[in-house]
């Protein structure tokens, strides 16, 4: 066996140990599984009408509170059972994915644009603008999310626009902070000074030089925010001030099932399980992204 006697010395690089590398691979494997689950949910949401064997809103007085297929009294016609109004739970859960995912994406995009925009401006120009926005952030953070959401929904009545606004109310702060921090750091960086020396305009520097470097953490934050938003929307729907009751939503289903938890436990439990599964996958995937894109944020 030939020896490469000029190999680098490995003493001191004990970070490159067997456990360290395995960990990266394990995390990646988990993240891949999570991505697959997310894809499954997306698919489910997209092709819901074809996937669900029943109309999610159809009530059947003759088949109320049917247990899931694996319990006594269950039937393959309703694999996950039916609720108190005889609606097929599986179909409702499948349709519920649409609401959660769509709302989640819209809110995350909205907050991402607002937060990133403000963060870029505050970070780059600083001064009174930065101080002003930071004050607003302080006030917003002190405000209990739920109360604001309750107030808005009480004010405007059930409306999807209001729901989006309520969810986006505080959501942009995370983006703002991360972007602002990165822009502040980048402002003094060599490549920015170089660009300015070459006569680049402010707009060019912000959008063509700094922004691309800030994109990875934005993606990570976006993914992790998605998880939070999904839970927030479900919570609001649970309280009755989220999605209008005519649209099947997981949170509403859990709330509907509360009355029957003593006997028909599946009505409240199974939709919540869907939430857990999706949110868990999103979180896991987000962490995998974070490890890959922006390790300094890793926990």
């Amino acid at each position, binding site marked *: 066996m030939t*020896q*490469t*006697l*000029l*190999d*680098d*010395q*490995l*003493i*001191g*690089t*004990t970070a*490159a*140990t*067997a*456990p*360290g*590398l395995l960990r990266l691979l394990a995390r990646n494997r988990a993240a891949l599984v999570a991505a697959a689950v997310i894809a499954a949910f997306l698919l489910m949401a997209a092709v819901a009408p074809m996937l669900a064997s029943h109309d999610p809103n159809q009530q059947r007085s003759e088949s109320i509170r049917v247990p899931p297929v694996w319990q006594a009294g269950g039937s393959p016609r309703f694999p996950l059972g039916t609720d108190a109004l005889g609606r097929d739970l599986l179909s409702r859960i499948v349709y519920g994915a649409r609401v959660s995912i769509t709302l989640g994406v819209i809110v995350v995009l909205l907050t991402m644009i607002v937060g990133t925009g403000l963060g870029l401006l505050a970070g780059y120009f600083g001064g009174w603008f930065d101080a002003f926005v930071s004050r607003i952030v302080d006030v917003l953070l002190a405000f209990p999310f739920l109360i604001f959401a309750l107030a808005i929904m009480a004010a405007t009545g059930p409306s999807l626009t209001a729901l989006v606004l309520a969810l986006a109310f505080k959501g942009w702060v995370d983006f703002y902070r991360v972007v602002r921090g990165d822009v502040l750091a980048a402002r003094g960086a060599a490549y920015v000074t170089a660009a300015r020396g070459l006569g680049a305009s402010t707009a060019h520097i912000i959008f063509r030089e700094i922004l691309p470097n800030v994109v990875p953490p934005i993606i990570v934050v976006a993914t992790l925010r998605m998880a939070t938003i999904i839970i927030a929307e479900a919570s609001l729907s649970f309280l009755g001030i989220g999605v209008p009751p005519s649209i099947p939503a997981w949170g509403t289903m859990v709330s509907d099932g509360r009355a029957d938890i003593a006997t028909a436990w599946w009505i409240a439990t199974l939709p919540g399980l869907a939430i857990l599964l999706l949110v868990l996958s999103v979180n896991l995937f987000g962490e995998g992204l974070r490890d890959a894109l922006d390790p300094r944020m890793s926990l």
Partner: protein
Amino acid sequence: MTEGSLLKVSGLRTEFATYRGALVAVDGVSLALRRGETLALVGESGCGKSVTALSVMRLVRRPGRITAGKVMFEGQDLLRRTRREMQRLRGSRIAMVFQDPLSTLNPAFTLETQISESLRVHRVARGREARERSVELLAAMGIPSPSERLHSYPHELSGGMRQRVMIAIAVSCSPDLLIADEPTTALDVTLQVQIMDLLAEIKRTRGLSIILITHDLGIVSQFSDRAAVMYAGRIVEQASVSELLGRPLHPYTEGLVGCIPRLGRPDVPITPIEGTVPDLVRPPVGCRFAPRCPRATDRCVASEPPDYRLESDRIVRCYLHEKSSLASSGEETG
């Protein structure tokens, strides 16, 4: 070996688990320290001298492991002691001073806390007596206004003072052996002299034996009695300092000495040592220095030379000196 050995290390071997395999940082190291002696452990970065020191104190952490050897301290093998026994030994019989005092002192605690906790844990003193002793220690280390300084935090002190504090903590429980791992590397030259003088003084007044780890031959010559030269995890030469520097035998030692610029002799060229250190995951079969040695033979490349014991208490690991050896020292090559 001889009587009066405070510390005798035989065939010490410490490995680190890496994704490429086991990295043997310390491979069959044997050395001896007599009472009252200062032994310098010399070598370039990465040769394993710090790991040797940590191994003696059994402070090597995962993924590192001591896999062979004996560390006889006052007649007992430290590698066979229980964890509790080691914990009691550390700080009270064997103490260690590290390289960078800013990172080695806990930023969250005052000097008083950090000094007196040693005293308390080793049952030397408690409460008010501990505080008084701490003040005495600081004063003995040459720190001005010691009783006020007691309430300071590490980040409020200068580098030199921090190092003095570390030394104070190390000698607080009157250990027999002090291991100083590059105590002056992080300091500027004037401070270096001060700290080394301090070490020399406390060695005298407290009867310490010292293992001094350094890559600075100047410090070796000024402050040590004997020196052991390490290369790629092995000790290649051991001798008294005057012999080692005046008449280096091992080609590596020669090379090191040849690297020292001579004051007032600008005409003498500095001869660097060609090449780089070997890979310790897959070390060479033969002598580790052979690839870089100007006098290497085929035999050197093919097999590892053993330790040859020479007169005047010298040990050299080099075939060149086979003829002058008194007898083979019989140490395993790990």
